[in-house]
């Protein structure tokens, strides 16, 4: 984030030096930044600020009372439920990240290097986005008749005689949650990786081959390092989506598994807004730390 701010700051500093007399020229960059600043301020910073403020308030079942209490935070951080739920959510994030990265990279790799014409690449890429024409919820719920005890998979397996009784853990389990998340979020990995792979100069690969590198060496020493920014962007997408997910966890686990956002949703439906706000602040801090960590490892801007 600090890196991103550098550039406008230096140009803004450079400009008044060049033509100190024209004041309009000096404030032009600020004017140009104003609309975005206003929108972000009103619709991002202000709400976050309000959440932070409310997280210190007192409440009962019906209303909230302005106050400065830390009990919401001590309730959140002091309960084993919170820790367990955070661990569970992080576990989902880690598993889904590994799977979407693996699948996403190979899909993007196939699109970028094995499809020869650009037109075909675009067609196939659009095919990848077809599922997005229906809603998130529908794509998720359609797994239920497939995975259920009497669902497509189980009835096929039983009829083929491969298993004596339906497999129970296919639905309403952590497996189902991970499966649905991978299905929902892989495209968020494919898109940025595909984008970076397309920008790799093909002559680099030719040069590597001329220098005697094997296919794996090219992949490991040329392609993957150059694809890192795309992977980092995809990672940010997937991790933040999984950390904030509640509907997938609730529907696919049959209400048996918990995630941080689901915990917040429960609190909000029980009108405990300050408690949910405290939870939101904790989650926000955690996710920002994770994103900061990713940005430290990979310099996204350098490669774009």
């Amino acid at each position, binding site marked *: 984030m600090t890196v991103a701010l550098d550039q406008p700051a230096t140009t803004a500093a450079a400009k008044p030096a060049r033509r100190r007399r024209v004041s309009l020229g000096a404030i032009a960059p600020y004017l140009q930044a104003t609309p975005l600043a206003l929108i972000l301020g009103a619709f991002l910073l202000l709400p976050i600020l309000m959440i932070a403020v409310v997280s210190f308030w007192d409440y009962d*079942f*019906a*209303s909230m009372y302005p106050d400065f209490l830390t009990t919401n935070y001590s309730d959140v951080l002091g*309960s*084993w*439920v919170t820790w*367990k*739920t955070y661990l*569970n959510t992080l576990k989902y994030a880690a598993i889904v990240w590994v799977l979407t990265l693996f699948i996403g990279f190979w899909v993007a790799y196939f699109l970028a290097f094995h499809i020869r014409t650009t037109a075909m690449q675009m067609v196939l890429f659009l095919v990848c986005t077809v599922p997005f024409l229906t809603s998130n919820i529908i794509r998720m719920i359609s797994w*239920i*008749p497939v995975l*259920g*005890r*009497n*669902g497509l998979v189980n009835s096929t397996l039983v009829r083929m005689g491969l298993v004596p009784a339906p497999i*129970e853990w296919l*639905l*309403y389990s952590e497996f189902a949650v991970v499966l649905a998340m991978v299905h929902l979020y892989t495209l968020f990995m494919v898109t940025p990786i595909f984008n970076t792979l397309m920008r790799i100069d093909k002559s680099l690969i030719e040069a590597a081959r001329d220098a005697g590198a094997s296919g794996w060496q090219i992949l490991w020493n040329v392609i993957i390092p150059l694809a890192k920014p795309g992977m980092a962007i995809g990672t940010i997408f997937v991790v933040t989506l999984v950390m904030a997910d509640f509907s997938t966890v*609730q529907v696919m686990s*049959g*209400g*048996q598994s*918990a995630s941080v956002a689901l*915990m917040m949703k*429960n*609190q909000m*439906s*029980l*009108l405990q807004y300050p408690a949910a706000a405290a939870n939101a602040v904790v989650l926000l801090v955690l996710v920002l730390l994770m994103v900061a960590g990713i940005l430290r490892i990979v310099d996204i801007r350098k490669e774009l």
Partner: protein
Amino acid sequence: MTNTADKKTGISRRSLLKTGAAAVGFAAGSGAISGFPTIWAQSNITLRQFGTGVSNLNAIADKCKADLGITLEMTATDSDAAAQRAVTQPDSYDIADIEYWIAKKVFPTGVLQPMDVSKLKYYDELVPLFKTGKLTPDSVIAQGTAPHTVGYVEAQDSKVFAKAPTNWFTMVPTIYNADTLGIRPDLVGRDITTWADIMDPAFKGKTAILNIPSIGIMDAAMIMEAMGNIKYADKGNMTKDEIDKTIDFLIKAKQGGQFRAFWKSFDESVNLMASGEVVIQSMWSPAVAAVRSKGIACRFQPLKEGYRSWGGGLGLAAHLKGAELDAAYEYINWYTSGWVGGYLNRQGYYSANMVSAKKFMSEDEWGYWIEGKPAKGDILSPDGKVMEKAGAVRDGGSFENRMGKVACWNSVMDEDRYMVKRWNEFIAA
């Protein structure tokens, strides 16, 4: 358009507006003087009603419009959101269609006004369950937030619930039912007689309970007591210790894999049952009917410990006055005058005014739904679908048999916040 009119006739824009306003005023005025009872149709009164969905039925709004001319705008929410909305947005509704345990939370905040019993045309016909807590003079009052305990206040401006019937009703009762476990008789493979059967190891991974804390805890309490694990002083108002014991038991059962899922909405419970994921679970009566209407066997099994019951009513928003208040009373009197009652009875719920509802039901319908007799012909739902074939008998039998065996009412506990916190732990465990 006004510009061309200006040129041709010489009427200024200003005078045109004036004439228009006068015409509108005349139209409204002529409506107002055309008299009772069509007054509502003319003056276009709209009542905004919000509630928990069970009785927020479009058919009722349509019929209300046809009979009274009052437009009903209905909003359905879940119970927690209903309680919140009732308290935090008191100006956003005119009629609160909420359950009695929600009323216990909401009424003391002063957002609802008590209603004058003498203005209720059908007050005397209402089932005594909502006045004295007893269906028949010798029945036992059930545990929990029994409707009569929050049914009255001492005076018009009072927010304190009265111990005995007074002239000031908090809500007029409309809809109620007795809930129990739903089962798939074709899949359980044995007789189900007690709430404890849901914990039978034979049904491991094939049971579900509902994930609405205030109701789920009551089902859990019925199960706990049926298993002989504990004897509650009042299931509807547990002590912290009782809550701990109940939740610890649930967590143990969950970790042992007893439950397949926890459901939150009506359709989830229908799907769980219809797909065979679950063979015994907490259920609501219309959900059982929905499963059956798919041609799948499902029974709302009466159990020896009795039913967990719930009841809802209509409350008046505190801001109502004048013509709107009159319209609201008119609406409530219409609601209890029979058509709605018959409609609700035919959906498998119960109307608080059985006398008037009977007039709107056929003899066979009354026999099947209320008297527990075998149906002589096919029993149709209000929208004309066949619900039961001739010869069918209602699960649990007659009205007296079902509502007379209520073990506890849905309730809100003094230790509500603690209970909710522990319930969340159960779901996260």
